[in-house]
């Protein structure tokens, strides 16, 4: 579903991503982990289109998207959330979701029909709000929501695009333990047809929620495998777990 082929990216003399290849099948729950500075965020930005790779290719559904801007990738089914909440702060939850629908389905050029007449968009917003646990907060302003609820909406916006591949950038960052639990349940409950790729700093979280894990270190793929293999790997223990002393 999502493939990366020998991606390279350097900032000046610093090689941040080095020959990273991924092949993620449909329906996978794929986590990308690594210690601080391993190049997780850069890789994520390469996949999402915020950065252009120096070399290599990115394909979604066998279509080459290496040189497409973020908005084109989103329209092709690659949707992302942000590590720092990146919402429409003056709007209600419902309006946030509606904006996502307009952008994702590309009917923003329609300047005469009323948005209020688009029952389909309102219906979809309600469905997604139910999925992310915010159905009772539809009319509330984003600023009134708790941090955890804002994080849930962050994922909700990405889901409104009805993506083929959902990229989650540290979905539980900054959350309390209960909030983290709620977010992980939310991710577990996503439809199995959806491919989910998440970047996580906290490795313990992903062992129970990913079926495949890629470990990055110094911009390179250190290893890729199932959670038990990764957990059992000496190399991973040494560079990641040992180094972090967690």
């Amino acid at each position, binding site marked *: 579903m999502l493939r990366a082929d020998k991606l390279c990216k350097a900032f000046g003399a610093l090689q941040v991503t080095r020959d990273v290849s991924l092949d993620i099948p449909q329906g996978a729950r794929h986590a990308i982990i690594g210690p601080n500075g391993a190049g997780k965020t850069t890789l994520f930005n390469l996949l999402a289109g915020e950065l252009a790779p120096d070399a290599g290719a990115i394909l979604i559904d066998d279509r080459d998207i290496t040189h497409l801007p*973020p*908005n084109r990738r*989103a329209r092709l089914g690659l949707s992302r959330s942000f590590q720092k909440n990146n919402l*429409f*702060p*003056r709007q209600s939850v419902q309006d946030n979701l509606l904006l996502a629908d307009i*952008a994702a389905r590309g009917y923003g050029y329609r300047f005469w029909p009323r948005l209020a007449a688009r029952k389909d968009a309102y219906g979809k917003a309600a469905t997604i709000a139910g999925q992310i646990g915010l159905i009772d907060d539809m009319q509330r302003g984003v600023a009134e929501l708790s941090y955890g609820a804002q994080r849930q909406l962050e994922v909700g916006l990405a889901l409104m695009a009805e993506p083929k591949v959902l990229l989650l950038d540290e979905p539980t960052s900054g959350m309390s333990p209960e909030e983290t639990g709620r977010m992980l349940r939310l991710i577990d409950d996503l439809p199995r047809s959806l491919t989910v790729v998440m970047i996580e700093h906290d490795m313990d979280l992903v062992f129970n929620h990913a079926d495949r894990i890629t470990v990055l270190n110094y911009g390179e793929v250190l290893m890729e495998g199932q959670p038990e293999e990764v957990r059992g790997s000496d190399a991973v223990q040494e560079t990641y777990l040992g180094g972090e002393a967690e």
Partner: protein
Amino acid sequence: MAHVLQFRHALALVALAALLIFWTQAGYFGMEILAEIAVFAILAMSLDLAAGYAGLVSLGHAALFGFGAYMFALFTVLWGWPASLAVVLATLATGAIALIVGAVVTRVQGVFFIVITLAIGEMGYEFFFKNRALGGDDGLSGISRLDLSAIGVDLNDPGIFALFLIVVAAITYLLLVRLLASPYGAVLTGLHDNPGRMRALGLPVRTYQTSIFAFSGALAGFAGTLSAQHTQFITPNLLHWTTSGEVLVMVILGGLGTLVGPVIGAVVLTLLRHELSNVTDYWGFWLGFFLILIVLGGKNGIVGWLAAGWNALRGARPDDDQAADEPAEGEEASDAAR
């Protein structure tokens, strides 16, 4: 959100009623002021679309306004085309220019956007200032108005012309309300709040920014054709950045991104400019003082003050600990708005 919009529409209705009542009482000079208010209301609404809704704060908007006025004068005075055709073509020509300018200026954001629009606006000013064929710094005179005698309307009567402009401004307001309720209107607020997220969600951000800049420019050009017909004499000062600044002040004074705010801003600023200058030579000083009062306090202009005052009166926001001292100052603002 619905009651916010209802409140704004009610304000718009009050503003329209006030203008119409003023119209029944106005003499020749009053009619001139009303016409000026109506033209600036349309111009300020056009700037609000770009600056208040889409977040594209332009300091070159008057150049588009003046361009529309000059195109109208060129088409009618120098080329002898009928005024009705000239209004349409001057509006479209301004929109086309704004489309080209918009494609360039939306490459930059924030303060750079302000500076680049200012620079392009000044280029326009310089062009018309130096162009002898269009009258240079002497301007162009002998501009005639639309001929609506076929339907029994004589626009050369100052009172009829003022009423005509008020009606045009009201229709413009209604059309823009409709536009803002559309998916396109929602996109504008999304672009204002978070263009990066709109892009990540799949929106080609610059295309949309360019489109609203072009539409806003066309509307400014339309206001320019009305201004040319009103004064029947135009100078390059229409394009000057100080005019842009004045319109931006109208928008901010009234309330950014409220549509009715810029209308109220146009009313208040135009009235203050005429009335204060009768009372004191220091009218600019007092105007500045008034602006500071309105903008201080973190409210979104006059509309923001009125909304806060209204909410406090209804007791709709008991959780707001500022509510106690808001009504007094809010009323002060609303009194001044009359």
